[in-house]
């Protein structure tokens, strides 16, 4: 038996030694990365990166924005305080050196820059652009919908004039086209790279494009490597037509847990952390090592109520709920003040926005009264559906639940896995739901109200009002600005009265980075960072 005792003693010794090895050297803060590298903590990996058929999560969209370029782009303007921002309503040439509209506003002609090259060195010409749009229309992907909205219904409306010139013909003059074009969906592709992947089974080379970009990039960065689920790395594209990016290499590290991203930022292991919990922002703002960039975005967060499903088909019920939601708590305690209250379905920052019709603040008596009027004095029970994994959604839901309990509405919170949530929302099957992912990248009010309140696509609340439909169709797409604004006023008046949504908030877009990272430019059109502007001190 001695042997066992000796043995266990020996094991103990070894264990102690090993522990000393690991712990003895107390964990110290990470060394900083060098000035040519940027390490960014993101919440999730890239998904489908085919620019015309992407599912478009933020990371994927931002990735595409940094590796591809478009014919036109947002203008970067300097504000009064010296900061620079991307103006969502002002467009300049991108790959096109210049562009010219015809008088009637139905044709725009682009003149390409000289010496454009793809990242692999292939020349980029108007033929490449024609190739890109032909593929885009053949594929019938996401971008086509946007082009069609701007009255460019098929590939015959894209005219290759010569290798430096290309024209787009519109069926009807409108102001939507550029807003729809300054997006990754219009990324110009390299026929030499993409062409060989086009097969009979897959005429649009989706199989290749959905997971690769190498050789067909022309943006400031190009894809270096991917370690799926873990990281993806961008490296400066030396063939970029514009000013070369400052930072040579960007490592996107996937860290799903927001508090881990925070911890890594604070320890200096990463330079930028995306999607941080708002509750931790005050501490970051107080931290001299960290710079927090805060910009009000046009992202809208609201509670949808399916206007076709009882009891939400009753305006009074919708109003009652709108009176019951604790707006202040949500802005102050869920968003911890990093949001402004949304006071119109058209967010602040979009032309035509007004908060003049907004009446809702929490008033449980009034809410109860409305519920009584609606014939539901005893309230009802319902399920509140939110996407899984969103802290904001979770917290909002709990506060809403508690508030509605106060007027007799029994709410059960259902967290849906991402895909289930999206499937149901696409099919307009959600009845009472939270959503916070929508931003109208094209900052045209028509684009916004058409998608959200006309009967098609993204009118997830199934709101249907002929007057509103008519107003949208007849006035908002016109070039008559006065008529447009008047129509928008009327629309907002109606919507606030009919309350298809509970308007929650417009969050601030918050990006926290190490203080030595400079040069950040906010693009309110899409909230996406263009990394070419960043540099380290």
């Amino acid at each position, binding site marked *: 038996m001695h042997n066992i005792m000796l043995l266990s003693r020996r094991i103990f010794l070894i264990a102690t030694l090993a522990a000393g090895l690991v712990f003895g050297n107390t964990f110290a803060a990470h060394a900083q990365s060098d000035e040519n590298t940027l390490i960014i903590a993101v919440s999730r990996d890239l998904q489908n990166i085919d620019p015309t058929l992407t599912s478009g999560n933020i990371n994927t969209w931002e990735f595409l924005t940094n590796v591809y370029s478009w014919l036109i782009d947002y203008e970067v303007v300097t504000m009064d305080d010296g900061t620079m921002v991307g103006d969502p309503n002002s467009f300049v040439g991108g790959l096109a050196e210049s562009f010219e509209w015809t008088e009637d506003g139905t044709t725009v002609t682009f003149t390409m820059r000289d010496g454009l090259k793809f990242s692999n060195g292939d020349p980029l010409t108007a033929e490449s652009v024609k190739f890109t749009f032909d593929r885009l229309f053949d594929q019938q992907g996401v971008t086509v919908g946007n082009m069609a909205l701007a009255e460019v219904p098929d590939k015959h409306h894209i005219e290759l004039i010569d290798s430096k010139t290309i024209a787009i013909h519109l069926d009807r003059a409108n102001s939507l086209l550029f807003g729809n074009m300054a997006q990754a969906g219009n990324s110009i592709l390299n026929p030499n790279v993409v062409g060989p992947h086009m097969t009979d089974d897959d005429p649009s080379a989706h199989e290749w494009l959905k997971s690769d970009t190498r050789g067909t990039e022309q943006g400031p960065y190009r894809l270096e490597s991917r370690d799926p689920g873990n990281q993806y790395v961008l490296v400066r594209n030396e063939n970029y037509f514009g000013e070369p990016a400052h930072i040579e290499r960007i490592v996107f590290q996937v860290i799903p847990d927001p508090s881990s991203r925070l911890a890594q930022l604070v320890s200096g292991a990463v330079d930028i952390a995306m999607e941080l*919990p708002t509750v931790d922002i005050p501490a970051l703002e107080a931290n001299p090592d960290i710079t927090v960039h805060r910009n009000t975005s046009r992202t809208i967060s609201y509670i949808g109520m399916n206007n076709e499903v009882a009891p939400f088909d009753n305006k009074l019920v919708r109003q009652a709920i709108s009176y019951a939601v604790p707006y202040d708590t949500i802005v102050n*305690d869920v968003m911890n003040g990093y949001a402004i209250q949304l006071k119109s379905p058209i967010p602040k920052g979009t032309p035509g926005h007004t908060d003049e019709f907004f009446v809702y603040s929490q008033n449980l008596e009034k809410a109860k009264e409305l519920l009584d009027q609606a014939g539901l004095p005893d309230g009802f029970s319902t399920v509140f559906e939110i996407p899984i994994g969103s802290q904001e959604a979770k917290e909002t839901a709990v*506060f809403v639940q508690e508030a509605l309990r106060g007027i007799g509405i029994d709410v059960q919170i259902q967290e849906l896995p991402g895909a289930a949530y999206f499937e149901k929302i696409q099919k307009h099957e959600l009845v009472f739901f939270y959503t916070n992912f929508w931003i109208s990248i094209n900052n045209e009010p028509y684009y916004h109200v058409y998608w959200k309140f006309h009967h098609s696509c993204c009118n997830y609340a199934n709101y249907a009002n002929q007057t509103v439909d008519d107003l949208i169709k007849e006035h908002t797409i016109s070039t008559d600005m006065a008529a447009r604004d008047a129509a928008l006023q009327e629309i907002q008046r109606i919507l606030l009265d009919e309350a298809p949504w509970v308007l929650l908030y417009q969050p601030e877009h918050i990006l926290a980075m190490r203080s030595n990272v400079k040069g950040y430019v906010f693009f309110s059109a899409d909230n996406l960072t263009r990394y070419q502007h960043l540099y380290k001190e």
Partner: protein
Amino acid sequence: MIGPQEQIVPGLTALARWCRRNPVTAFGFFIILGLGVLGLLAPLIAPYDPYALNPREKMQPPSWDHLFGTGIFGEDIFSRVLYGIRIDFGIGLGAVAFGLIAGSSVGVIAGYYGGRIDEVLMRLMDIVAAFPGFILAMAIAGVLGPSIPNLIIAIAFVNVPVYARLSRSRFLVIRESLYALAARGVGASDFRILTWHLLPNSLAPIFVQSTLQCGWAILDAAGLSFIGLGVHLPTPEWGVMIGLGAPRIIAGQWWISFFPGLAIAITVMGFNLIGDGLQDLLDPRRW
């Protein structure tokens, strides 16, 4: 040598004496009974409404006002942990009951009839058991969507093979037992043998197993809730509560997750102590 302990579930007095001799197991009973009472009396004991939100006091560390501190909504963790007893016990017992009934029915049918029925049923069980349990439960919970009944079903389903195999093997043993043969010999029908002779003899190990399973079911339920596949927010279920507090751990707000987790650990420990103790009765070699 002293002969093996009698394989019987003791009567109450025997149990009491046995508990005196096995203070550890008695401790297990004490924990579960105590928690059960606390759960029943939760409305009387809990200082706050478990659903009451108080954003002005969110994420307060433990104090006399809030024994276990407050959570991200300013909810009182202590009250919620108390109410959690009801939910988690319910899930544990529910999952065990479902799994037990389904599994032992399969096992008894397979074990008693044998032959092709046995073969088919047990191959099915093999297939279910070939999945790593928690992952299968995740998949089922994912399919069914989060709710307490679905959670119970998911966990119960995964454990069906456990009960099926246990009751089948137990049944195979006692089916071959001499007393079953003797019962046939005096003219008892299959049904009578099954119900009057075999069932009482197969219950003990299955009962012991259920006690242990109860603890595991609570653990699995908490795990599923933790990753969002379990019960609804803001139900005071312990796994959900740990999940709510998890992001705050790195920021040092430990109490939000700590106390619900402690409650799970104590509960599961209680069930395991009882299960182990009962197992001792059946097989003195084990802990």
